[in-house]
């Protein structure tokens, strides 16, 4: 029985890609494949200029949903390590929002595991984005059908 090392963090602190990558790789000669995804703040979203982005979440539930997602991924693919970091609070263009990294003996498992976590995170983890434009007006983002469609392929 494989034991997957899972690490989940939610908070306002930034993350460092090399630190997360090293945590996937250190003392790890089992895994030939590492895939990771980083989500970042764009300066243009759905045609609207973005000055800043506020990320609200549901403390407690976010951590538990991300933990479950990591466990589900580890149950479906041979992943030895899974790391998820999601930031909350006020962010600006080019800031990092989310890190999902997995390691596996197998390349396709690593790609699928990382894509699965991101797709389901997008539709089930209780985070909400509110964008503020250069003129100071704010808007809550609407969920996108394209994200629902991507998540449904893993059902």
């Amino acid at each position, binding site marked *: 029985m494989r034991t997957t090392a899972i690490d989940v963090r939610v908070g306002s602190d930034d993350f460092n890609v090399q630190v997360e990558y090293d945590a996937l790789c250190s003392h790890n000669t089992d895994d030939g494949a590492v895939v990771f995804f980083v*989500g970042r703040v764009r300066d243009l979203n759905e045609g609207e200029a973005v000055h800043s982005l506020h*990320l*609200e*979440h*549901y403390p*407690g*539930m976010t951590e*538990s*949903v991300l933990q479950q997602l990591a466990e589900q991924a580890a149950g479906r693919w041979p992943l030895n390590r899974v790391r998820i970091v*999601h930031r909350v609070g006020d962010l600006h263009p080019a800031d990092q*929002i*989310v890190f999902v990294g997995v390691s596996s003996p197998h390349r396709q498992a690593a790609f699928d595991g990382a894509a699965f976590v*991101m797709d389901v*995170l*997008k*539709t*089930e*983890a*209780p*985070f*909400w*984005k*509110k964008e503020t434009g250069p003129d100071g007006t704010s808007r*809550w*983002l*609407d*969920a996108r059908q394209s*994200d629902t469609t991507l998540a449904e392929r893993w059902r």
Partner: protein
Amino acid sequence: MSEPVQVKFFARLREELGVSSLNIPAEVVPDLDALLDWLVKAHPQWQPALQGKLMTAVNQSMTSSNVALQPGDEVALFPPVTGG
């Protein structure tokens, strides 16, 4: 007297209602449908916001059916999520 049911609102819904959480006596909200009826009856001005597309979590687990509620349960109502 038993513990109440706690209701939390997030994001756009929280802003529209102007409330982030409230407690309701467990006796009057035996299930999620009853909870929604109670909210609209007690706060008619909330009806438009509560009729929008919302997600529901009970004790921090997403649910899409009308589950029974127990004293001390934590219910959360919020718009579809947009993280990641």
